């Protein structure tokens, strides 16, 4: 599939909607929980499979949105124009590296017994 500006536009909008959901969830659950929680509860929660899936999806939407945005902002510059394709590949490589590293970290996490 060729990544056209139309496709990047769609990717960025869809990831923005996903981010809205995940960011709201993250802020409510982690930073402003309606009930009192402590460190041990958070640690236990981070080890639950459902939260690992949510965190991986959150990571996916953050990386997609950020890299697509950075690509579009950088290619605004005329001097970058000839290197658009190379920049696109750099974004893809960064995405793969960060996603693999982040996913590995999330999956490998185990709460201390």
């Amino acid at each position: 599939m060729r990544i056209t500006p139309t496709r990047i536009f769609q990717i960025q909008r869809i990831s923005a909607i996903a981010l809205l959901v995940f960011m709201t969830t993250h802020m409510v659950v982690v930073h402003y929980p309606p009930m009192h929680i402590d460190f041990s509860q958070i640690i236990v929660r981070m080890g639950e499979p459902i939260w690992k899936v949510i965190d991986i999806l959150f990571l996916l939407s953050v990386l997609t949105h950020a890299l697509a945005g950075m690509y579009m902002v950088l290619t605004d510059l005329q001097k970058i124009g000839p290197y658009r394709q190379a920049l696109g590949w750099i974004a893809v490589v960064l995405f793969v590296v960060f996603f693999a590293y982040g996913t590995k970290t999330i999956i490998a996490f185990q709460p201390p017994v």
Partner: protein
Amino acid sequence: MATNGTSKTAVIRIQKFNPDKDKKPYLKEYTVTVTPDTTILDALEEIKATQDGTLTFRRSCRHAICGSCAMNVNGHNTLVCNQRVNAHLDKKGMITVRPLPYLPIVKDMVVDRTSFWDQYQRIKPWLVPPEDVPETEFRMTPEEVKALNDAEKCIMCGACYSACTVTAMNKSYIGPHALLKASLRIQDPRDSITDERLVEISGADGAYRCHTIFNCIDACPKNLNPTQAIETLRKLAQKRAAYVDARKERQKTL
């Protein structure tokens, strides 16, 4: 700012630049007597006639229809022929007039609009009718005319193009002026190259380059809405095939 009846003196601070003599642009102040009806263009004409014959600027119709006299007044792109001096004076009784920003200066207020026209040509701003032109006249519905958002009223002054920060960074961007005209043609049911136009505007330098900063709306002296046109183009580009098919069906009933 001295006042004498209805007339008063105002200071017009003008950016001067002669590439043959000056290394960089500089501001020069001129004092002129203005009445409530004096336009900025009137003041510039007076300065040129009585104080500085070298002052260079474009103007033609004096009725805000030719688009020649677009300049930057107090940081805001506008036509100087329909703007009164009094409306723009600051507390010190001063106006700062500069050429349109982000465009190469030829001399004083005159800028090189080559990139502006190049981008305009790129979107083929003319109507391309279908090959089988009917014997009768083409008729658009009032709804179709309304959807054009008065884009045909654009006078190509360059105020929006020069106010656009994306244009400032990238002259290969099609620009708000051309995208507005592209939307006019793409939404015109009489046009037959909708697909080609949508492909062009959805390219790397097209509608997706816009960051919806709204500078173009702010600058337009005709109160047009290039940002809205660009948003419409984005939507149409998303459903290009369906829109092109619908356009062909529509042309059968013109």
